[in-house]
């Protein structure tokens, strides 16, 4: 493989977060250029710079150089530090944008992380605080990261004003477990969180009722919770959303979410979220598409054994991520149809030999 001095080179602004994460985990230096160089407004966006600042805070010895025009960066990663941190997220992106990479790094930090992020908790681009709490974190548990893992939604903040606040606590591990998750099971229960801030709390109930009108036919174990945040805890802008998740007998989790939109009734938001959930359920597999990258990453970092996971077809960004993984870790996945006998089954079986990644940052106890 290349010497540690050499840079891995990428072009373009896409896949920015996953490349930074891979760089920090692997310790390989990265150079990304041509960041929106052809755009009318070239260079890094404010949220990307904010993310770089955040990564700088969460690590020690990281060197980030940004070119004058902002269209190229150089990242020489340091060690992942963790500890108690605070970060004010710009209102151009939701907290999920910043928390996703942190979640990927936190288990391998020197100290358990305790980070408070302020900003927008739910928007239509990034995983909301609710999905991160109820779906993303359980995915980490698959890899043996569980004790003390928590996301607290202290305040909610809708777009555009924000004003939300979440606290993320993550333990550190020496190594992650090898995943062997090939049986998706059958769905045994459905959970949901509806919230409405700075609007009448009745909207929550209306979304829940609409959602139930579809879901009640399937299983009796449905619990949709109306999460009430008032006053200072409800942020600066009005908004509401319904987050749904379906859990299978083998703990596969599918999730979907719909958020308020001007001129659309809460009932329709509820229906939208519900139908999106059914779409995820239909795609099947053990991990939903929103979490493909997280799971694949942890599989690569797993102990030196073959990890397996059944999932739906990769999304474009997953494909690029698989290519990037090979660049950083020289590991490729074996991807074969999960069920050869069934021509209608589009699910795939992803397997790879773990790199046996060991958390070298961890303070020896």
């Amino acid at each position, binding site marked *: 493989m290349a010497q540690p001095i050499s840079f891995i080179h990428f072009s373009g602004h896409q896949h920015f977060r996953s490349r930074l994460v891979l760089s920090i985990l692997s310790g390989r230096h990265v150079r990304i250029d041509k960041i*929106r160089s052809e755009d009318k407004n070239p260079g890094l966006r404010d949220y990307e710079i904010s993310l770089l600042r955040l990564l700088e805070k969460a690590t020690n010895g990281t060197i980030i150089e940004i070119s004058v025009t902002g269209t190229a960066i150089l990242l020489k990663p340091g060690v992942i530090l963790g500890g108690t941190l605070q970060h004010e997220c710009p209102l151009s992106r939701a907290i999920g944008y910043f928390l996703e990479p942190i979640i990927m790094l936190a288990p391998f930090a020197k100290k358990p992380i305790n980070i408070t992020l302020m900003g927008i908790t739910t928007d239509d681009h990034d995983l909301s605080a609710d999905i991160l709490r109820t779906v993303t974190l359980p995915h980490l548990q698959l890899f043996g990261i569980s004790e003390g893992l928590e996301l607290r939604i202290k305040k909610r903040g809708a777009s555009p004003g924000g004003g939300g606040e979440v606290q993320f606590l993550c333990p550190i591990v020496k190594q992650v477990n090898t995943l062997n998750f090939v049986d998706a099971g059958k769905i*045994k229960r459905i959970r949901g969180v509806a919230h409405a801030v700075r609007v009448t709390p009745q909207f929550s109930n209306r979304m829940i009722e609409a959602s139930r009108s579809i879901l009640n036919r399937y299983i009796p174990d449905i619990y949709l919770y109306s999460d009430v945040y008032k006053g200072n805890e409800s942020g600066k802008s009005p908004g509401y959303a319904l987050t749904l998740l379906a859990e299978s007998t083998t703990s596969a989790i599918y999730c979907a979410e719909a958020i308020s939109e001007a001129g659309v009734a809460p009932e329709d938001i509820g229906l939208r979220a519900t139908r*999106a959930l059914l779409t995820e359920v239909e795609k099947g597999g053990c991990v939903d598409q929103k979490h493909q990258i997280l799971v694949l990453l942890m599989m690569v970092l797993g102990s030196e054994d073959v990890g397996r996971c059944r999932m739906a077809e990769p*999304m474009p960004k997953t494909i690029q991520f698989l290519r990037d993984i090979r660049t950083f870790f020289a590991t490729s996945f074996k991807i074969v149809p999960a069920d050869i006998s069934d021509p209608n089954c589009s699910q795939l079986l992803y397997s790879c030999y773990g790199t046996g990644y060991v958390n070298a940052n961890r303070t020896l106890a």
Partner: protein
Amino acid sequence: AAQLAAGTHKRRKDWIKLIYNSSLSPEEIVNGQQSTDKSSEDEGDDFFQVKSTHAEDPDVLDQGKEPLDEESLKKWEDEEMLDSIRNLFITGAEAAAEGEG
């Protein structure tokens, strides 16, 4: 639904080869190989003539959620469609699996 099934059947791809041994962009792999030419639609009036090689589209966000596709959600308005996934729930009879798989 028949059309849907035919679609998935036709698209049995060699993922390993496509991902690791081809120069196709991820979007091209997922959507099939037809290079979606956007050149025809934005001719003329754009002073800045944004060189849009698909993958370089500055509007593409690095985001955790995919936007909900209103059109594809419409299929769930159909009772038959709703029933077709019953077998994925613990309460669903195994017999229902014959129809859709």
